[in-house]
Structures are given as C-alpha cells and as structure tokens.
C-alpha cells in the first residue's frame, strides 16, 4: 500500500462529514490529522486503531513535531512489538477538539473565517468516535482488527465497541472507565477554572492576541498531573527532597523537588497544547457515561456484542481505579461478551499505561495473537 498516499506519517485530510454531534449540532467540514504504521493487507482487515488520551496525539511512534520527543507509545508500536507493524496497519487519529491538526477550537470557523474559540461546538467521546468512523470510511477500512486505548483512549475504545459493534473485532481498554466519577469531574473543573480565571484567556478569543492563558493552562496541567501519579510513586521519586538547595528558603520558590517538577510539567505543556482544547476535551470526558443512553444499565451498551474485550487496570491508579474496570467486566459478563481482565501491579499510578510495563506488553501481544485463532 506504499503507493496509497492516504497512509503513512503526518497525514491530514478535510472531509465533508458531517459529524452529527450529541449536542444536536453538525460539524462540517472536519479536519483529520493522523498517522499510520505498517501496511494494510489486501482484505483490509488488519488495521488497529489507537485512541489517544486527553493530551495525547497521533505521534504514537514517530517524533513529535513540537517537542522533538520520540513517539509516546514507542514501546508498544513497531516491528515485533505488541502492536506489530509487520502484521498490523496501526492507525492513530488526533481526536476531535484537539490541537494537533484535527478540527478543534483553534481551527478556522467557516462561518467567520476566524478561529472558532468558544464557538466550537461542545463534543463528546461518542462524537470523537463517530468522526473517526468517517475517516475510516475514507480509508476504506470497514472492520478493525482491534481498537485500543488507555485512559480517554479506553473510553473511545468502549464507545467504538458499543456504537459500531460490527466494525470492531476486538477492543483493549487500559486504565479506563465507563463513566466519569464526581471526583474525576471535580479535578477537571479545577483545571478549567484555572484556565478561565487567567485574564489572558479572554473568553477563549486569544488566538489573534499576543497573550494566551499559559499560566492557567500550566496550573490545570499541574493539578491533573498529580492525579496521574500514585502517592507511592511521588514519594519514591521526590520524597521531601529540596530542589538545588541546602535548606528551606522561607519563601515561595520551588523549595521542594516535587514543586519544581510540577512547575516544569506545567510550563512545557503549554508549548504543545491549546488551552481551549483542554476545556473541550475535559468536558467531553466529564460528559462520558456509557450507560446513560441505556437507562443506566451498562450491560445493554454491549448486548449481543461479538467483540472480544481485554481490560487492564493498575493497582496504584486512583484516577480510574480497578473497581471501574471491574464494573465494565461485570457488564460484559452480563452481556455474555468474551472478556478478559487483569489488574497489573505498578508503582506508577495512572501513567503506568504509558510506561514500559513488560506484563502489559505480554498480555496485549497474547490477546492480539489469539485473534488469529478465532
């Protein structure tokens, strides 16, 4: 398929959709930024869709254009890796509402020829998935061998299996949940308020100005980053260690290493992420409750499903704890779906899914190779 220029690195396409949004609005046109690794076979049935997390992007296994860093899931994607690009055509699409090339609040609103800002429609996880389905139609991929994602990516994978059961042969859901809890929403609200309280936010219309709400976005990232790590992980990494000094300063500098680390996380994040995108995507996650459309009965979201599911949680993840994965597993059992679930041990909290975790790699590789049997 090397001659097919729909596939490869750093791809972008504008499609007319439209995406029919849960809010009732329609989004048109829709821009998609995506990457693919490995060749699509003749039957076009070896595609794996990776759904990325809140601040993730399509650069799963290639260098990030803004940061220069290597792909964010390099330990998972490549020749001989669990998502083996010698066997699979691995695709990742920047989600709707994001800022790495797919339509989002920084895109140009055709009605005004200016960036959307807050005129961008509020989107949901299901909207992201419906948009991805439009791109897959364009790529002439009817059925996915697997849809996989961690965190918000797992929410998309679950939605894929629920909205398009015939298009999903298997789904891998890592460190995720079928609904946002009050605590999840609460942390996101702190982040959003930090952004909107920044005077440089300007009601979301900061794109043409010299000032953007970098401080608010950095604080949002700092608060969120705490939820991605476990207490054990933070203690192990920083303890109460002081940053480049012998004694406390009796001031408000970053005396502690953990403060310095968080400030660094915040300040580097603003170079690669748009504050309005952060508002829209966290909103989409907060609105996520897969059971809502099924009278609160999660099992009904999967009734009659032929999809094989694999769920993985981490024991130190307090953002989407194991109990949330178990809730999904119970629903899959009740629906009679083929489901596997394992809780893996890791000191790294929610972030464990992004890190090199040999046990996770082994489970995913095994689960995927089993797809060849059935």
């Amino acid at each position, binding site marked *: 398929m090397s001659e097919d220029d729909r596939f490869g690195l750093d791809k972008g396409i504008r499609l007319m959709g439209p995406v029919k949004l849960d809010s009732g609005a329609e989004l048109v046109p829709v821009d998609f930024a995506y990457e693919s690794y490995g060749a699509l076979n003749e039957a076009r049935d070896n595609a794996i869709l990776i759904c990325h997390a809140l601040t993730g992007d399509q650069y799963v296994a290639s260098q990030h254009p803004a940061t220069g860093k290597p792909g964010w899931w390099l330990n998972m994607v490549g020749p001989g890796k669990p998502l083996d690009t010698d066997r699979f055509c691995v695709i990742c699409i920047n989600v709707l509402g994001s800022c790495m090339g797919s339509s989002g609040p920084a895109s140009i609103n055709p009605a005004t020829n200016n960036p959307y800002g807050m005129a961008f429609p509020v989107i949901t996880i299901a909207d992201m998935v419906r948009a991805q389905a439009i791109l897959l139609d364009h790529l002439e991929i009817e059925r996915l061998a697997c849809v996989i994602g961690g965190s918000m990516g797992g929410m998309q994978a679950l939605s894929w299996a629920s909205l398009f059961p015939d298009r999903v042969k298997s789904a891998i859901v890592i460190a995720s949940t079928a609904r946002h809890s009050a605590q999840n929403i609460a942390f996101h609200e702190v982040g959003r308020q930090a952004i909107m309280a920044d005077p440089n936010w300007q009601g979301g219309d900061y794109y043409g100005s010299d000032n953007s709400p970098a401080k608010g976005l950095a604080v949002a990232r700092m608060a969120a980053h705490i939820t991605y790590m476990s207490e054990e992980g933070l203690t192990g990494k920083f303890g109460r260690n002081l940053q480049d000094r012998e004694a406390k300063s009796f001031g408000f500098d970053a005396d502690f290493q953990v403060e310095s680390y968080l400030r660094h996380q915040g300040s580097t994040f603003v170079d690669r992420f748009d504050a309005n995108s952060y508002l829209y995507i966290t909103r989409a996650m907060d609105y996520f409750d897969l059971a809502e459309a099924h009278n609160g009965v999660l099992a009904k979201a999967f009734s009659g499903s032929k999809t094989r599911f694999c769920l993985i949680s981490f024991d130190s993840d307090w953002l989407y704890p194991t109990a949330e994965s178990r809730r999904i597993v119970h629903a899959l059992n*009740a629906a*009679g779906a083929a489901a596997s679930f*394992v809780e893996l041990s890791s000191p790294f909290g929610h972030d464990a899914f992004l890190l090199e975790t040999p046990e996770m790699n082994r489970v995913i590789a095994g689960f995927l190779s089993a797809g060849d049997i059935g």
Partner: protein
Amino acid sequence: MTALRPDLTIIANNIQAGTRVLDVGCGDGALMAALRDEKQVDARGLEIDAANVSAAVARGLSVIQGDADTDLADYPDDSFDYAILSQTLQTTRRPDIVLEHLLRIGKEAFVSFPNFAQWRIRFAHMFGGRMPVTKQLPDRWYDTPNIHHVTIDDFRAFLKERDVVIENSWFLGGKQQATKRLANLLAAHAVFKLRKS
C-alpha cells in the same frame, strides 16, 4: 498438548463439543485451552492470581481476574452449559455459596477436590499427630490455601441436604479409579458431575 491433570482429563472427556464453559479457578487456562483446541468449546475463565490470568490471556483465552467468593454473583443464570470448579472448592471462604452459584450459572457443574479422608491423610493425622503434609496436600498448616477441608462423604451429605443431583462421579486413587463404595477411604481426589434438581 501437555498432559492435563487427571481430574481435568476426566472433566475434559465428559464435556460435549461446541458448548459454553465457565472454568472457575482456571489457573493458567490449561483445561480451557484443551477444550478450545480439541472440542471447539467457547470457554471463559475466572482466576484470582494475576500472573495466571496474564498467562491465560497470553494464550488467547478469555479470563477475568476475580474471586469466586465475590464475583460469581455477576454471572446470569444458566449462561453456560457447564460451570467447572476444579481443586478450588476447598480454598473458598463459603464453599456452599460458591456451589450454589455454580449450579445457577451452569446447566451442569463439575466439581473436583482433594479428599481429606483418604487413608494416607488419616494415617498421617492419626499417627503423626500433626496436620498432614502429603503428595496431594503438600502445603503446611500455616501456608495452605485450603481453608475448608472436605471429604467425599462430607460432600455427598452436603449434596443430599440440598437436593443436588449427582449425575456422575469419579474417584482417583494412586494410579487408577477407586470404587464408589470405598472412595472416601481410598480416593485421593474426587470429581463430581452435578445439576440442580
């Protein structure tokens, strides 16, 4: 295929091809894999140990990490042709409730367990005066996972009390099967095929 444990071989030989099976306490999935590969069985497993679950998923099986004592309640009635509990009954906190679920979830159930009244164990207990450590019960009193020791006669009485139908039973001695009458004394392991009345 590697040789199955003797009780699993009996269970595998008595399962119809093409059926749906739930293996409770499936370990690394040896029985499930055999049933899938040789009898086209749609097998699902429940297993408490994460390393075992990983190993089973890595061989392509649908296995959920969970606890028979708490997680069987989530499975709908009659959702499987067979529910299997092999060498797990004696490790559960409430074997009676686990068995109730097993008979509710499966149209038929297989239960296998080590017989605590086998003569070797009686011998060790009577003359050694210590909790027996034998080939089939190799753990010591403080590290054994077996918290509800049961004998074949205990189990029969239990089934009778609850009107559970014994469709078949097998008793494993050293090498060969023991007779039904002397099973409680001679058999090291028992396998029962059950259904609710």
